[in-house]
């Protein structure tokens, strides 16, 4: 037993901080101290409202007791709903808090697992605390996301498996672990990997596998998976009274299976993932292993990396436990990467998307680190130092070793904290605030779609605007945000013509200058085939490519006659209307707070920063064209402080070129170049791109 190794006696060390924790004579007291320490740090760093990516969707779905995107995540949704009952703060904050609490509980399980392995409270406490504050784990604990729930389930399954492996109540522990894995299918599907890990304790204690166990195991697993029925029953409820926001609709058993297996996602389909996992190609396994170790495992435990190696070395005395850890590490860092990280050329986007999948592995790694802590302290005390009579060393060496990672914690907290980060909150609000009364927003891509979902479903902002989710639905409408029962009175024409084509329904709005899309690039074919676009605030405004003879907008009467080819004057008139609205509404954007928000390097945040940067440049340009040079200049400077110009300068220059404002584009680039420094180099690059774009356009014209 490891408890009999030197590490097992670490608590007897004459160290102040060890003695401090040893004085607390119950594990419960220490557990509570750990949990509340972690919770205090998380609460101080928590995102104050919605965050980027799926976070807003989870908050909205939790509040609605609905479903998120496939596989629906019903387990997280119902836990989020529980937290939304707290009578303090806003809904998004409360759902974010659920992630923090689940992360705190995962840290507790690290403590318990480590204690089972080492019997050292101090080492276990230190390992669990550092786990909670390791950057990847920490960030996921501060927003509404499923990964800390997955981490809690994974470490609990690991703990139960470890107990079974050590001969403690095999039947109870393995059945409970299987139940949790089943329940975990209502969270993130990577929990299935713990099924592989659990096979080792079952194999190692095969003599304890009885007929009763064989009978009960599938039953408890199935009982756990029944959490997924939430999606079916809520879909039925929606059919009955149309009340919930369901992103994954599953009112038939077939639909339910499709949602659970993520059939809509093709390459991310669960069955496809399993097929990939079964693929025998060795190269991709190795690439995945390398990618995951270098990009995830090593950075996650970097300050304490040596302790994990020491931990593994000390486990040699306990071969079964050692194998258990190795199986877990292989499951998370060999099998999972084969599915999500096996491409030899990892893009930043795919890496960022994949990193949170590995969050459940972090508590397991930190249990190993705790073994390393306990073993190192024990080794120094009993072996190395005592034998060499280096009496001066024991007083501080072990303390330094264990405390060293803690020195880095304030920096981690500073870098990862989402306290005061309102970027997603302001983004969703600003999109809606900038919409004219009774307009139509076609929503594409996660950031605008999910933040607007939340603002509408929970905060009920701008209920005069029709918001249509068109993502993944080709050219049909997704009415989650604008259900018939709510909007058919305000928009009778729209709902009457719901069976006619998308382009016809949109046209009325477009002719009034009230049709918008959240992204120009992601528009569906029918929309992009029939409508031109012009930048609007954080979105684009759409107008028909073919206009009626007399559009007669913005009065709003449907024009008569057949569509004709666009006449330049009409297009110019349309752009003038959009620009006028832009001019009026830009000051409503919360760009000041975006400037104050600490920069976060993830791709979703960058998308938002770049949109604010672009729009501020656009506004500055408008002011300059009005002859308000100084004010315009001020907004150019604001744009550069809002976000890195690398994110938006080229898109702004490219827009100017497409809008036939070459001189303006090159004047801007000369101005930036004159400023010198890194921006000058950027301007040179953008200038080269601009020349190539002009050449390409001229060549295309010549060909025509």
């Amino acid at each position, binding site marked *: 037993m490891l408890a009999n190794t030197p590490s097992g006696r670490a608590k007897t060390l004459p160290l102040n901080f060890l003695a401090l924790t040893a004085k607390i004579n119950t594990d419960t007291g220490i557990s509570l101290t750990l949990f509340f320490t972690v919770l205090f740090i998380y609460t101080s760093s928590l995102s104050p409202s919605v965050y980027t990516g799926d976070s807003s969707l989870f908050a909205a779905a939790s509040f609605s007791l609905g479903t998120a995107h496939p596989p629906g995540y019903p387990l997280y949704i119902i836990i989020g709903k529980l937290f939304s009952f707290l009578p303090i703060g806003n809904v998004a904050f409360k759902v974010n808090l659920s992630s923090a609490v689940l992360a705190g509980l995962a840290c507790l399980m690290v403590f318990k697992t480590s204690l089972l392995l080492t019997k050292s409270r101090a080492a276990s406490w230190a390992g669990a605390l550092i786990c909670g504050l390791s950057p990847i784990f920490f960030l996921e604990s501060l927003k509404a996301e499923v990964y800390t729930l997955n981490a809690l389930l994974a470490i609990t399954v690991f703990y139960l498996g470890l107990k079974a492996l050590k001969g403690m109540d095999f039947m109870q522990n393995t059945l409970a672990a299987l139940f949790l894995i089943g329940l975990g299918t209502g969270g993130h599907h990577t929990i299935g990997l713990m099924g592989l890990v659990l096979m080792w304790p079952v194999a190692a204690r095969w003599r304890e596998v009885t007929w009763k166990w064989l009978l009960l195991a599938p039953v408890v697993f199935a009982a756990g998976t029944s959490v997924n029925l939430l999606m079916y029953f809520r879909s039925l409820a929606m059919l009955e009274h149309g009340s919930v926001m369901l992103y994954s609709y599953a009112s038939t058993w077939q639909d339910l299976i499709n949602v659970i297996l993520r059939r809509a996602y093709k390459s991310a389909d669960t069955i496809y993932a399993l097929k990939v996992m079964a693929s025998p190609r060795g190269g991709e396994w190795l690439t995945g292993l390398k990618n995951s170790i270098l990009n995830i495992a090593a950075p996650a435990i970097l300050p304490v990396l040596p302790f994990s190696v020491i931990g593994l070395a000390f486990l040699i005395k306990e071969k079964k436990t050692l194998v258990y850890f190795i199986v877990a590490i292989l499951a998370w860092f060999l099998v999972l990467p084969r599915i999500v990280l096996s491409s030899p050329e990892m893009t930043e986007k795919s890496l960022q998307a994949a990193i949170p999948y590995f969050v459940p592995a972090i508590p397991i790694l930190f249990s190993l680190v705790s073994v390393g802590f306990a073993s190192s302290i024990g080794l120094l005390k009993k072996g190395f130092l005592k034998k060499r009579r280096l009496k001066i060393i024991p007083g501080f060496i072990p303390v330094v070793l264990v405390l060293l990672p803690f020195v880095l914690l304030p920096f981690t907290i500073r870098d990862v904290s989402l306290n005061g980060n309102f970027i997603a909150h302001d983004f969703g609000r600003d999109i809606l*605030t900038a919409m004219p009364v009774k307009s139509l927003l076609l929503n594409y891509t996660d950031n605008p779609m999910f933040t607007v979902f939340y*603002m509408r479903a929970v905060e009920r902002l701008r209920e005069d605007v029709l918001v249509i989710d068109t993502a993944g639905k080709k050219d049909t409408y997704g009415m989650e945000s604008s259900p018939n029962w709510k909007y058919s009175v305000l928009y009778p024409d729209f709902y009457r013509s719901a069976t006619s084509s998308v382009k016809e329904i949109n046209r009325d709005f477009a002719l009034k200058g009230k049709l918008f899309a959240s992204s120009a690039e992601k528009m569906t074919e029918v929309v992009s085939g029939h409508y031109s676009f012009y930048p609007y605030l954080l979105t684009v405004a759409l107008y028909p490519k073919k206009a009626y003879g007399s559009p007669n907008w913005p009065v709003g009467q449907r024009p008569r006659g057949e569509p004709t080819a666009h006449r330049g004057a009409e297009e110019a008139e349309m752009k003038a209307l959009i620009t006028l609205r832009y001019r009026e509404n830009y000051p409503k954007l919360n760009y000041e707070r975006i400037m104050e928000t600490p920069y976060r390097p993830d791709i979703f945040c960058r998308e938002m920063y770049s949109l604010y940067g672009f729009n501020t440049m656009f506004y500055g340009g408008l002011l300059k064209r009005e002859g308000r040079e100084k004010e315009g200049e001020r907004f150019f400077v604001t744009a550069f402080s809002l976000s890195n110009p690398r994110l938006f300068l080229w898109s702004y220059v490219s827009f100017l070129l497409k809008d036939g404002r070459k001189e303006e584009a090159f004047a801007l680039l000369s101005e930036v170049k004159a400023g010198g420094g890194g921006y000058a180099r950027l301007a040179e690059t953008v200038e080269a791109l601009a020349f190539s774009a002009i050449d390409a356009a001229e060549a295309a014209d010549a060909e025509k």
Partner: protein
Amino acid sequence: MYKGFLVKGFIVAALFFLIVGGRVFYLQRSHFMTAEGYYAEGNWKLAVREYDTAMHFYTPLSPYVERSAQRLWQIGEMFEQEERFDWANIAYSSIRSSFYASRSLYTPGKDWIKKCDEKIAGLNVRILIREGSVRPEDAASEKARHLYAMNVDRAPRPLWAALAVAGFFGWIGSVIFIIFKGFAHGKTSMRHALYGAASFALSFSVWVLALLRA
């Protein structure tokens, strides 16, 4: 044993509310103070933003919620008098959406929400008349349509939603009870297993019913 469990539970809950409630109240107060600064300077846009944020950190019985709502209402009326209807709309919407964002088992500020609904619907119609989309004689019917969209709400009913959550944790607890009590130390205790099964059946039924009704 149960007494000890209750004491521990109470300590945990008290600490939890102290940490979370303290943080929320601190954030609310600091945003309110910032808002007061902007209000004194006459920077209405930032004042609205900060009052709105203060209200988003809703704390029951806190004076800052009511005071923020009053300030936002004043700013809204001021914009209205200046005929800056869209800006007035932002101020009133801030009150309304902040109270909706703070929903839990109850919706705070229902009176405020009702007052804001009237204001926002009226302002929307005035904007539409001004841009020529609605004729002045249709104002009343148009306002009624806006009010309908703002009043109709089918968010989950709190009681049924709470029952759904309770039923869920009930059947989870029942399965764990069956595993740990019904099959303790490799022996089957039929009594515990039956209690667990009955509890499972009951809470699972409550869960399903509440999901359908919420």
